[in-house]
């Protein structure tokens, strides 16, 4: 079993094109060792160079990348290998679980064929004939807890978690010594994430494989790895024992990363997400008014597609008071996004459902609908997709005002909204187009666009799911301060219980279209009654859980 050694690795990308930027250093002087049989996690935010570093192990970098320093597997320098030698090394000695299993599988071949493909390219004594290869594929599927019948399935017939399992089976196919897992659980929900992580850890321990895991989520790495390295802007910030790094971080950046995800039950993080601001501590004892803004009774939504009708939301009752933040928690497919779309009137409800906004049924067409839209606004999950890339921030924020035929000083209102969303000074952002902004700024611009029309209720669908950890706290703090300053109500949809703990007054847990538990945050999260809530809580990766 060889060690994997990064010796003073520098990787630069040469870029050409209109905005000729010359050379970009993606990885700067990184030295790391992954001993045989060990597990190492690399954490960092987007753009920190962690994926670039991992891809360099198999020389999978694009043609415009230049590698400095040495990457060694055992005593072999990757850079010295001829193409044939490299092919032999790829997959047989080191394999990769790629990021985003959804797109890494060939949609027109069965997963069995795809696993066998790797075996055919690296024939060894154990699988010399077609029959033994097929047997090996089934054995691999068994190892990742998939039924043998799944070998005949096409990728679109599998769920996200199952696809990820297939990717892992493929990575294990040729009995590699090293596995590189690039964000193996991103885009999976908490329960599946826990299953996958447990499975990877068990397989790695069982077979004595060394693993390099990359993630932006420190708690995921803490669950699966012995040692953790933190990267930032291509540089290695800190490296050490997983427990040490997570509990007593030396570098301020590591501290920021480890604090970004709160521990449920920790009073310090209750209604107090981690930010760099000092005025964020809100009055935790504030009383909620009895003024009910939104009321839903017996809401049912059925999709009539091909095949039998599918009830996405079943008999949901909710009420939201003025100045209340309600977190709707559930895993993917639980119907929470459908419910949100229903509440903003984008989705028709079935007969018998009642949704009342300020005591009136929500309208479905014409002027009344437009007026309703100025009262209820939605913030979508991915801010880079929610802004038209060709339109400046000013235009995007003013769009709602123009649609609503706003009478008054448009520019003043836009500036006010940007300031409310804490994009300061607002004038600086007027002419910026979305690609010039960071992820957090984009989400603020989306929020400003929603605020411009002066809503009473904000529906936010996974508002921080696609943002980096350090930005997460800032956006959550913004939502809290909006509630305090503008007395807004908010319905926040999330799969992340920590988020609910951070900002929500009440929590509703949704499972298969129905609300299974609903009550004040402390009550639901600290004293869960329903078994599903307990499963969700147990699955949430946290740093303390494993190391306690």
């Amino acid at each position: 079993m060889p060690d994997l050694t990064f010796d003073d690795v520098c990787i630069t990308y040469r870029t050409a094109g209109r905005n000729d930027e010359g050379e970009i250093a993606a990885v700067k002087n990184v030295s790391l060792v992954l001993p045989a049989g060990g597990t190492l996690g690399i954490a960092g935010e987007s753009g920190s160079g962690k994926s670039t570093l991992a891809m360099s192990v198999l020389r999978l970098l694009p043609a415009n990348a230049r590698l400095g320093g040495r990457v060694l597997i055992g005593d072999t320098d990757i850079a010295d290998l001829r193409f044939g030698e490299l092919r032999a090394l790829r997959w047989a000695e080191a394999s990769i679980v790629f990021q985003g299993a959804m797109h890494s599988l060939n949609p027109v071949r069965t997963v069995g064929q795809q696993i066998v493909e790797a075996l055919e390219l690296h024939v060894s004594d154990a699988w010399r004939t077609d029959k033994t290869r097929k047997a090996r594929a089934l054995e691999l599927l068994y190892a990742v807890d998939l039924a043998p019948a799944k070998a005949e399935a096409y990728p679109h017939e599998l769920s996200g978690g199952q696809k990820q399992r297939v990717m892992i089976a493929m990575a294990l196919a040729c009995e590699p010594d090293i596995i590189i897992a690039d964000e193996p659980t991103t885009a999976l929900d908490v329960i599946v994430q826990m299953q996958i992580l447990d499975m990877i850890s068990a397989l790695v321990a069982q077979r004595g494989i060394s693993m390099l895991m990359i993630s932006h989520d420190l708690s995921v790495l803490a669950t699966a790895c012995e040692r953790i390295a933190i990267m930032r802007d291509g540089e290695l910030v800190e490296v050490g024992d997983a427990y040490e790094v997570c509990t007593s971080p030396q570098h301020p950046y590591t501290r920021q990363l480890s604090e970004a995800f709160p521990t449920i039950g920790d009073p310090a993080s209750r209604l107090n997400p981690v930010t760099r601001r000092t005025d964020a501590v809100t009055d935790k004892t504030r009383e909620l008014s009895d003024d009910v803004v939104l009321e839903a009774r017996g809401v049912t939504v059925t999709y009539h597609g091909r095949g039998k009708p599918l009830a996405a939301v079943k008999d949901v009752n909710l009420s939201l008071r003025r100045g209340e933040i309600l977190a709707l928690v559930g895993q993917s497919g639980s119907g929470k996004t459908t419910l949100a779309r229903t509440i903003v009137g984008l989705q028709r409800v079935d007969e018998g459902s009642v949704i009342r906004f300020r005591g009136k049924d929500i309208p479905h067409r014409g002027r009344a609908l437009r007026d309703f839209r100025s009262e209820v606004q939605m913030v979508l999950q991915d801010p880079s997709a929610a802004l038209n890339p060709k339109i400046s921030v000013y235009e995007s924020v003013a769009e709602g005002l123009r649609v609503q035929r706003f009478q008054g000083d448009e520019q003043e209102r836009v500036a006010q909204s940007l300031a409310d969303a804490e994009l300061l000074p607002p004038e600086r952002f007027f002419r910026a187009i979305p690609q010039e902004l960071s992820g957090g700024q984009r989400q603020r611009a989306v929020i400003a666009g929603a605020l411009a029309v002066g809503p009473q209720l904000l529906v936010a669908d996974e508002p921080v799911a696609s943002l980096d950890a350090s930005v997460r706290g800032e956006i959550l703090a913004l939502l809290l301060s909006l509630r305090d300053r503008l007395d807004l109500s908010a319905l926040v949809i999330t799969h992340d219980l920590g988020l609910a703990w951070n900002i929500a007054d009440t929590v509703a847990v949704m499972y298969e279209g129905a609300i299974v538990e609903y009550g004040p945050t402390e009550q639901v999260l600290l004293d869960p009654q329903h078994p599903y809530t307990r499963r969700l809580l147990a699955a949430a990766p946290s740093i303390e859980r494993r190391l306690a």
Partner: protein
Amino acid sequence: MSGTTATAARSPRSMAWARRRHAFGGFCREFSHSRAGMAGLIFLVVVILLALLAPVLAPSWMLDVTKLLEQPRFAPPSFAHPLGTDDQGRELWVRMIWGARVSLLVGFAATAVSMIIGTIVGIAAGHFTGWTGGLLMRIIDFFLVLPSLILAIVLSSVLSRGVWTIVIAIGLTSWAGTARVVRAQTLSVESRDYIERARVLGAGHWHIIVKHLLPAVLPLVLANTTLTVGSAIIAESTLSFLGLGDTTLQSWGSVLKNSMDVSAATAGYWWYILVPGIAIVLVVLAFTLIGRAVETIVNPTLRSR
């Protein structure tokens, strides 16, 4: 954002215009770097200038057969007759620059008709789902499978003969492909979150189409335009060649047809066929070069291919 621009850019409208000017400037700069695109553009400008200056360069009496009795017939290209003469003693170069007027006019006008119909129907088919979209798609399919040449022949024999009939015939038969491309792009833009966001803000169909969909499909339409101009010029030549154009007007297609009438190919009058033929090829090529250059600028993923 420096202090100097802050005062100038107060109103949103002027800001939008400034941005568009800037974008257009960037586009021109980039286009000027594309050698093939510039070659096509320069060639086209020369042809257009020649066509516009036709009455000055070659007064219309030069086409009047009654005044050309002393001219030799079927004179091969020489110093005295640069591109040779035709069966009635007319100078071929005179016929070519007069013919360029009709050919280019038909090319541009027919393309405009085709693009306008194609864009409107394409966006509508992509934006309106369900019944309306389905019906529009069937209409597009209908025009797509219609043998366009035959429809054009029927149209130009039913309507009065003339340049505009040919324009309508070509325009009506060539928009379906554009509509399909535009619909595909519309569908992809339609699924973006910013359309959903606009809807939540209370936007209606008109706002979404004009503000988000049209700007997103326009680059595609522009690139498509240059390619369609080429095929429209060919279509015009075809129709004139088949004798469906206005016989009193010169066009490159009618020159070709005349050459066929006198069996130029078998009689050895090669210049009679090659000159209009090559002219058509070059103009279409120029449009294609421009189209490709525009396409790579507006769609950066095509670069380096």
